[in-house]
């Protein structure tokens, strides 16, 4: 008998590699910071057995073509390890499948948001569909029970951190709030 949904570890049947010598002075510094952030965040939160598998899977995007499995696994990690909420995961998956240029940028925006708000907010990754025009994009909603007075300032700082990396990409991601209470 198997029970789902679940939070748990992944089997570690693949050999674990380490990536300690990735040069963080790389020109695409935001991407290097993303790797650094995830390493740091997980090393301070989770035991090594789960960490190694996460790092291995996440860093598979380096040197391999991003594919459907990479995207799905990463979203699962956001849900399981960083507590992200997905109202309609299928929409997010489909959007990222077709806009792979912003895949790791999306992870970067997610980790920045989680770092800023963490347990003080519900963080939800959704696909926003403009009701007026044919436009849709990914949105990270930050929702709090009691909104911090400087929440917009904090959100703006996050957007500023990753926005320039979207230049030339077809896809788009926004961090915002709708000032609603956290959803069930």
């Amino acid at each position: 008998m198997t029970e789902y949904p679940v939070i748990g570890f992944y089997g570690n049947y693949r050999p674990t590699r380490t990536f300690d010598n990735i040069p963080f002075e790389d020109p695409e510094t935001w991407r290097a910071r993303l790797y650094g952030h995830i390493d740091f965040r997980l090393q301070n939160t989770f035991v090594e057995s789960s960490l190694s598998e996460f790092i291995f899977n996440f860093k598979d995007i380096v040197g391999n073509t991003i594919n459907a499995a990479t995207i799905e696994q990463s979203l699962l990690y956001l849900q399981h390890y960083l507590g992200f909420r997905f109202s309609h995961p299928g929409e997010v998956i489909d959007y990222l499948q077709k806009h792979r240029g912003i895949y790791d940028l999306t992870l970067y925006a997610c980790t920045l948001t989680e770092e800023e708000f963490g347990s003080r907010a519900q963080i939800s990754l959704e696909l926003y569909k403009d009701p007026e025009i044919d436009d849709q994009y990914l949105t990270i909603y930050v929702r709090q029970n009691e909104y911090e007075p400087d929440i917009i300032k904090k959100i703006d700082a996050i957007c500023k951190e990753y926005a320039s990396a979207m230049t030339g990409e077809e896809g788009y991601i926004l961090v915002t709030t709708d000032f609603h209470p956290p959803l069930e």
Partner: protein
Amino acid sequence: MKYKNPPIVEAICEFRFSKETKWDLTIPGSVYEKVKDQFPNKENRLEQEVILKAGETGVNQDLVASQKALMLSSDRSSLIQVGQHLLSINHLKPYVGWESFKPKIQMAYDTLSEITEINGIDRMALVYIDRIEIPGNRIHMEDYFKFYPHLGAELPQDHNSFMVGVQLPYHNNRDFCKLQLTSAMATKKDHVAFLMTTEYSLAKKNAIPSDKALEWMEAAHAIIRQLFKGCITEKLEDIFVRLD
């Protein structure tokens, strides 16, 4: 084996050519010129590749930036990627079948062959990624899969997330097929989800001459099809709804 609700979310055909294949920065642009009717959207992507090198102090890793050109169909459901000594053809859902995917592979491969002489294939692979969603919160894996994590009678029978994989050798280890099943994020309420990845690849450099590459792909596809059928039960096929 045709389904009304096929589980395939992505099919990938990838070629990595040997260093003896002449390559220059004009190749992606030349490929685009020839395929732009079918793949009109062109994007460039800077990716980073980890190069593993064995040295006196063990295995070292270098991170090398590489540019990849992506040529996408107008609905973005299929794409051709051209990078340094790399050609990849991807098809996302809706996947309408090998009969439709194969001509795209053939067209991309022939196009590249017209632009540069292919002198050796280091690696090639055909990959299918299936997303499987099953209604229910608790299921018996064995009802739906013939390939799944088996827990002996003395072990707890309830389990959480998992990843199981096996590498199967073919043709005296010339080819490998990696079969992997992992848990995934359910997109429907009260469903459980799984990702099944079947990756058939050439394990020995230059074991297949470049003019036989597409024959190899055809054979790879037949094996993947057989393996997929071998991994699932009729009960799971009922969810996909067989058409033939």
